[in-house]
Protein backbone atom coordinates (compact mmCIF):
# COMPACT_ATOMS: atom_id res chain seq x y z
CA UNK A 1 0.00 0.00 0.00
CA UNK A 2 1.46 3.38 -0.99
CA UNK A 3 1.61 6.41 1.28
CA UNK A 4 -1.15 7.87 -0.87
CA UNK A 5 -3.44 4.87 -0.25
CA UNK A 6 -2.68 4.92 3.48
CA UNK A 7 -3.51 8.63 3.55
CA UNK A 8 -6.83 8.10 1.80
CA UNK A 9 -7.73 5.34 4.25
CA UNK A 10 -6.70 7.45 7.25
CA UNK A 11 -8.78 10.35 5.93
CA UNK A 12 -11.93 8.27 5.59
CA UNK A 13 -11.47 6.62 8.98
CA UNK A 14 -11.22 10.09 10.51
CA UNK A 15 -14.29 11.27 8.59
CA UNK A 16 -16.27 8.28 9.85
CA UNK A 17 -15.34 9.12 13.43
CA UNK A 18 -16.45 12.73 13.01
CA UNK A 19 -19.02 12.64 10.19
CA UNK A 20 -20.37 16.16 10.74
CA UNK A 21 -17.02 17.88 11.14
CA UNK A 22 -13.93 18.89 9.28
CA UNK A 23 -11.00 16.73 10.28
CA UNK A 24 -7.25 17.20 10.12
CA UNK A 25 -5.52 13.86 10.00
CA UNK A 26 -1.91 12.78 9.89
CA UNK A 27 -1.60 10.78 6.66
CA UNK A 28 1.08 8.48 8.03
CA UNK A 29 -0.06 7.67 11.57
CA UNK A 30 -3.78 8.06 10.85
CA UNK A 31 -4.09 10.17 14.00
CA UNK A 32 -6.86 12.76 14.06
CA UNK A 33 -5.07 15.98 14.98
CA UNK A 34 -8.17 18.18 15.05
CA UNK A 35 -11.86 18.13 14.28
CA UNK A 36 -14.28 20.99 14.18
CA UNK A 37 -17.61 21.94 12.62
CA UNK A 38 -15.86 24.92 11.09
CA UNK A 39 -12.71 24.95 9.03
CA UNK A 40 -11.50 27.96 11.01
CA UNK A 41 -11.64 25.80 14.16
CA UNK A 42 -9.31 23.30 12.53
CA UNK A 43 -6.92 26.06 11.52
CA UNK A 44 -6.88 27.42 15.05
CA UNK A 45 -6.00 24.04 16.52
CA UNK A 46 -3.33 23.06 14.04
CA UNK A 47 -1.69 26.48 14.08
CA UNK A 48 -0.49 25.71 17.61
CA UNK A 49 1.23 22.57 16.38
CA UNK A 50 4.92 22.62 15.59
CA UNK A 51 4.21 21.44 12.08
CA UNK A 52 0.85 21.31 10.40
CA UNK A 53 2.46 20.53 7.08
CA UNK A 54 1.07 17.56 5.22
CA UNK A 55 -2.05 17.09 7.33
CA UNK A 56 -5.06 16.10 5.26
CA UNK A 57 -8.03 18.35 5.88
CA UNK A 58 -11.37 16.98 4.76
CA UNK A 59 -15.04 16.58 5.51
CA UNK A 60 -17.16 13.53 4.83
CA UNK A 61 -19.15 13.80 1.63
CA UNK A 62 -22.75 12.80 2.25
CA UNK A 63 -23.94 9.72 0.34
CA UNK A 64 -26.55 11.89 -1.35
CA UNK A 65 -23.92 14.27 -2.67
CA UNK A 66 -23.94 14.88 -6.40
CA UNK A 67 -21.52 16.99 -8.36
CA UNK A 68 -22.58 18.36 -11.73
CA UNK A 69 -22.18 22.13 -11.84
CA UNK A 70 -22.99 24.06 -14.94
CA UNK A 71 -22.40 27.65 -15.84
CA UNK A 72 -25.66 29.56 -16.04
CA UNK A 73 -26.36 32.23 -18.61
Amino acid at each position, binding site marked *: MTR*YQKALKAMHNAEDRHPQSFVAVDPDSGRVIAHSRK*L*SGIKKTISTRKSSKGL*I*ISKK*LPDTYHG*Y*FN*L*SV
Partner: protein
Amino acid sequence: MDILTYPFDCYGAIPRPLILVKIDNYSNPYPALIDTGADFTVFPGHFLDELGHCNKSRKVTSAKAGGFGGKAHYFIHTLKIFLLDGNLNPVWDTGKIKVGFAGGNSGIDSIVLGRDIICGKWRRLIINSESNNPKNWSVRIFI
Protein backbone atom coordinates in the same frame (compact mmCIF):
# COMPACT_ATOMS: atom_id res chain seq x y z
CA MET B 1 3.09 11.21 -21.84
CA ASP B 2 2.94 10.33 -18.14
CA ILE B 3 0.19 8.29 -16.54
CA LEU B 4 -0.90 8.76 -12.94
CA THR B 5 -2.93 5.93 -11.46
CA TYR B 6 -5.07 6.38 -8.36
CA PRO B 7 -7.25 3.92 -6.48
CA PHE B 8 -10.98 4.47 -6.90
CA ASP B 9 -12.38 5.75 -3.64
CA CYS B 10 -14.59 3.02 -2.17
CA TYR B 11 -14.87 4.01 1.47
CA GLY B 12 -18.40 5.44 1.36
CA ALA B 13 -21.63 3.76 0.32
CA ILE B 14 -21.06 5.01 -3.22
CA PRO B 15 -17.66 4.52 -4.90
CA ARG B 16 -16.37 7.83 -6.21
CA PRO B 17 -13.41 9.05 -8.26
CA LEU B 18 -11.99 11.05 -5.36
CA ILE B 19 -8.28 11.94 -5.44
CA LEU B 20 -5.96 13.89 -3.16
CA VAL B 21 -4.56 17.15 -4.56
CA LYS B 22 -2.52 20.08 -3.29
CA ILE B 23 -3.29 23.74 -3.94
CA ASP B 24 -0.79 26.49 -4.75
CA ASN B 25 2.09 26.41 -2.26
CA TYR B 26 0.09 24.81 0.55
CA SER B 27 1.45 21.53 1.81
CA ASN B 28 -1.84 20.01 2.97
CA PRO B 29 -3.49 17.51 0.65
CA TYR B 30 -7.23 17.97 0.04
CA PRO B 31 -9.70 15.48 -1.40
CA ALA B 32 -11.13 16.44 -4.80
CA LEU B 33 -13.91 14.78 -6.77
CA ILE B 34 -13.35 14.20 -10.51
CA ASP B 35 -16.67 15.25 -12.06
CA THR B 36 -17.03 15.01 -15.84
CA GLY B 37 -20.51 16.53 -15.50
CA ALA B 38 -19.14 19.77 -14.09
CA ASP B 39 -18.36 22.51 -16.59
CA PHE B 40 -15.68 23.99 -14.41
CA THR B 41 -13.72 23.44 -11.22
CA VAL B 42 -15.44 24.50 -8.02
CA PHE B 43 -14.18 25.01 -4.49
CA PRO B 44 -16.34 25.20 -1.37
CA GLY B 45 -16.61 28.77 -0.10
CA HIS B 46 -14.90 27.92 3.18
CA PHE B 47 -11.64 27.35 1.28
CA LEU B 48 -11.34 31.10 0.69
CA ASP B 49 -9.81 31.84 4.08
CA GLU B 50 -7.91 28.59 4.10
CA LEU B 51 -6.13 29.51 0.88
CA GLY B 52 -5.75 33.18 1.69
CA HIS B 53 -8.14 34.39 -1.01
CA CYS B 54 -10.69 37.18 -0.73
CA ASN B 55 -13.82 37.78 -2.81
CA LYS B 56 -13.38 41.54 -2.45
CA SER B 57 -10.20 41.59 -4.51
CA ARG B 58 -10.48 43.64 -7.71
CA LYS B 59 -9.30 40.66 -9.74
CA VAL B 60 -12.24 38.54 -8.61
CA THR B 61 -15.34 38.30 -10.80
CA SER B 62 -18.58 36.48 -10.10
CA ALA B 63 -20.77 34.07 -12.07
CA LYS B 64 -23.92 32.05 -11.59
CA ALA B 65 -23.93 28.28 -11.77
CA GLY B 66 -26.48 25.55 -11.26
CA GLY B 67 -26.66 21.83 -10.67
CA PHE B 68 -28.71 19.26 -8.85
CA GLY B 69 -28.27 21.26 -5.70
CA GLY B 70 -29.90 24.38 -7.16
CA LYS B 71 -28.36 27.66 -8.26
CA ALA B 72 -25.59 29.56 -6.56
CA HIS B 73 -23.19 32.43 -7.03
CA TYR B 74 -19.54 31.72 -7.67
CA PHE B 75 -16.53 33.91 -7.32
CA ILE B 76 -13.80 33.33 -9.85
CA HIS B 77 -10.25 33.10 -8.48
CA THR B 78 -6.94 32.02 -9.95
CA LEU B 79 -4.83 29.25 -8.48
CA LYS B 80 -2.79 26.13 -9.25
CA ILE B 81 -3.85 22.54 -8.54
CA PHE B 82 -1.22 19.81 -8.14
CA LEU B 83 -1.63 16.09 -8.72
CA LEU B 84 0.32 13.84 -6.34
CA ASP B 85 2.33 10.66 -6.64
CA GLY B 86 2.10 7.62 -4.38
CA ASN B 87 4.28 9.37 -1.81
CA LEU B 88 2.01 12.47 -1.71
CA ASN B 89 4.57 14.59 -3.56
CA PRO B 90 3.35 16.98 -6.26
CA VAL B 91 4.19 15.65 -9.71
CA TRP B 92 2.12 17.78 -12.07
CA ASP B 93 0.19 21.03 -11.92
CA THR B 94 -2.55 22.69 -13.91
CA GLY B 95 -0.69 25.98 -14.18
CA LYS B 96 -2.62 29.05 -13.08
CA ILE B 97 -6.29 28.41 -13.81
CA LYS B 98 -9.56 30.13 -13.02
CA VAL B 99 -11.79 28.25 -10.59
CA GLY B 100 -15.07 29.08 -8.89
CA PHE B 101 -15.46 29.50 -5.15
CA ALA B 102 -19.04 28.84 -4.08
CA GLY B 103 -20.71 31.74 -2.32
CA GLY B 104 -23.09 31.41 0.60
CA ASN B 105 -24.58 28.09 1.58
CA SER B 106 -24.07 26.16 -1.65
CA GLY B 107 -23.93 22.73 -0.03
CA ILE B 108 -20.56 22.01 -1.64
CA ASP B 109 -18.18 20.34 0.79
CA SER B 110 -15.51 19.08 -1.54
CA ILE B 111 -13.35 20.41 -4.34
CA VAL B 112 -14.92 19.43 -7.67
CA LEU B 113 -12.53 19.03 -10.62
CA GLY B 114 -14.53 19.91 -13.74
CA ARG B 115 -14.04 19.58 -17.48
CA ASP B 116 -11.87 22.70 -17.61
CA ILE B 117 -9.17 20.46 -16.10
CA ILE B 118 -10.33 17.02 -17.27
CA CYS B 119 -10.62 18.02 -20.94
CA GLY B 120 -8.56 21.19 -20.92
CA LYS B 121 -5.46 20.05 -19.06
CA TRP B 122 -5.39 16.25 -19.08
CA ARG B 123 -4.86 14.23 -22.26
CA ARG B 124 -7.05 11.35 -21.23
CA LEU B 125 -8.98 10.07 -18.21
CA ILE B 126 -9.72 6.37 -17.81
CA ILE B 127 -11.81 4.85 -15.07
CA ASN B 128 -10.93 1.18 -15.00
CA SER B 129 -13.98 -0.62 -13.62
CA GLU B 130 -13.40 -4.02 -15.20
CA SER B 131 -13.42 -5.85 -11.89
CA ASN B 132 -16.70 -6.74 -10.16
CA ASN B 133 -15.17 -5.43 -6.96
CA PRO B 134 -14.98 -1.60 -6.88
CA LYS B 135 -11.97 -1.91 -4.56
CA ASN B 136 -9.98 -2.98 -7.63
CA TRP B 137 -11.15 -0.04 -9.74
CA SER B 138 -8.73 2.73 -10.59
CA VAL B 139 -8.55 6.21 -12.06
CA ARG B 140 -5.84 6.77 -14.67
CA ILE B 141 -4.94 10.31 -15.65
CA PHE B 142 -2.79 10.87 -18.75
CA ILE B 143 -0.86 14.12 -18.53
